[in-house]
């Protein structure tokens, strides 16, 4: 039976993706900073879907541990999904280097560190799929999402390059660009209903895109065009905008 690895399983999108893959009879490995906390998730997935499910310790910013983490996994995953990411108060992050560093180290450096390890393994066995959950924010940097957006932009660029590198080796890399999603992260934000998806919907669309071996998928689809318009705004105009 095929196995999926969820890096960052405690997030709303992480658990939704884990459930989606489990419902398609994948065994699941949940990776998170606190495996004890993941115990209820583990039993939930085993009982609901009748698949195997393990939780393991994974810390995105402990780069040194990543090699050992991957080689010690109880099952070798056929699909690895990088879901983790943090969004902090941008004003605070701007004036506090430690916070800025934490955002970059989680969203970008940590992701690169673990995905390098996984990609190497997949390349050597000439199969496997890597899915990275980035964000539409990464398509153009702006003042109110300064650090978050730039870390996601870097991650998007990395995924694109990785796809290029792995393609000839039979390894598929998919970039997911979600727009607004109702999660704990956005609980206190006002989100326009028509542009926002639920975590379950995201998971469903990501799974369908995985089956179709898509390269870059926007969730929902119209975000691709929204971002195209935003990217088309000339810089002399864009720099004056407040958002």
């Amino acid at each position, binding site marked *: 039976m095929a196995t999926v690895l969820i890096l960052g399983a*405690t997030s*709303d999108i992480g*658990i939704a993706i884990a459930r989606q893959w489990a419902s398609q009879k994948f065994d699941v490995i949940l990776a998170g900073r606190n495996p004890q*906390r993941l115990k*209820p*998730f583990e*039993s*939930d997935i085993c*009982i*609901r879907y009748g698949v195997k499910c393990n939780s393991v310790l994974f810390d995105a910013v402990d780069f040194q541990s990543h090699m050992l983490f991957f080689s010690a996994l109880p099952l070798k995953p056929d699909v690895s999904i990088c879901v983790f990411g943090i969004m902090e108060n941008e004003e605070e992050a701007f004036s506090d280097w430690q916070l800025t560093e934490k955002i970059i180290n989680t969203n970008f450096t940590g992701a690169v560190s673990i995905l390098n390890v996984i990609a190497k393994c997949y390349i050597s066995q000439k199969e496997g799929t890597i899915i990275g959950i980035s964000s539409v924010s990464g398509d153009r940097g702006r003042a109110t999402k300064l650090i978050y957006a730039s870390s996601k932009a870097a991650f998007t660029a990395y995924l694109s390059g990785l796809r290029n590198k792995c393609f000839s080796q039979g390894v598929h890399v998919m970039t997911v660009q979600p727009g607004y999603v109702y999660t*704990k992260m956005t*609980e*206190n*934000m*006002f989100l326009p209903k028509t542009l926002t998806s639920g975590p379950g919907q995201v998971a469903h669309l990501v799974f369908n895109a995985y089956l179709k071996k898509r390269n870059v998928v926007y969730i929902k689809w119209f975000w691709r065009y929204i971002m195209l318009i935003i990217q088309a705004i000339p810089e002399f105009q864009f720099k004056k905008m407040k958002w």
Partner: protein
Amino acid sequence: MKKRISNWGNFPVVSANEKSFVFIEQLHDLVSESRDFIARGNGRCYGDASLAESVFSTLKFDKILSFNKLEGIFECQSGILLDQVLEVIVPAGWFLPVTPGTKFITIGGAVASDIHGKNHYAEGSFSRYVMDLDIFLASGESVTCSSEINNDLFESTCGGMGLTGVITRVKFKLKKIESSYIRKKQFRAENLEELILLMDKNCGYTYATAWIDCLKKGPHSGRGILIVGEHALFSELDEKRKENPLRKQQSRKVSFPVNLPSWALTVFVVKTFNLFYYFRQNKSEVEELVWYEPFFYPLDDILHWNRAYGKKGFIQYQFVIPFEKKQGLFEILNRIAERDMACFLAVLKIFGKQESIISFPREGYSLSLDFPFRSGLLEFLDELDRIVIHYGGRLYLTKDARMKPDILQSGYPGLERFRQIVNKYNPGGRIHSMLSDRLNLVTN
């Protein structure tokens, strides 16, 4: 960020700060940061329970913790919906011990309302099957309780509308089934007298409920259809169904897209519907084998059906009166007809013996009535309250949005005891809702 929330009746609407939690540590933080709060599940109670300025949604706290398929014991976090529980237990040959008319409620809500179903007379309410549960108190402490340990906390949490604390984990017993089908029987009754007679005669069935056409006056007042059922045994299935006795059927869901204008659901429309519904059954007695969903959850296939009542919403009025005082039922139906208070849906059930501090069920006839919100309704319901109390009955808190404190006091002899226990576990009244404020259930 504040948003406007309301429960299923769409009345009242309140501007609230809604926060959710995935881990118990997050709940701990929420509780210590908030001055006051109330837990909220899927918002399927009808009135103002679980509404407050600050609500903690349990919907993300929805993990299954264990499921013993041999003994039928299920343990889960409180935010899981019955719908999801059924998905797991039915294929394994188990069923919910008690279920209300919708599967879109949480297990936490089932305990807080101490829900009853069509089987109360035979099998009691949900709390009877709860083995133990965890409750998160305002003090930041998580306490396990059951009918044996911390019994006072347990008894006032079952039916206690979330006022003792946040229910976080529930372990309960399931009911063994041989098939996912129900052997259903329907009887037509010309009037209320006949209906009650039929009901008493058929009380040997596990499930029984009656639909009443409330718009009918005169000699046919209270005509209706009694529906009874039993879980079908394997041997009662036909050959085709025997191949997969615990089958899950795909039901097609439609959604009510918008709020209807409040004039749309007129008496004329409902009269026509009632006529059609009553005479659809052309014989006075029919028997058939049906899948469990249409039997238990006939309205769940129409998502947002409450929108049919329009923006103003509706009130569901549910009361129970003792068997020996059944003239109260006649009096209430007459009063509705007299005043031309359009009541669009009426459901009659029978309750068996139950003694509890604050749970709604007690022995007698229970009638629930749906009234679209309009001017004069509140005053009219006050009149009905007096009749209910006169006949020794009580009202269901889960459905209530308007009862006065003295009516509650007269209906629930355990109320003082309930207040004392709530005060013990929720001192200072940090946990409160619009319902508890309106009825002075919590002392702050």
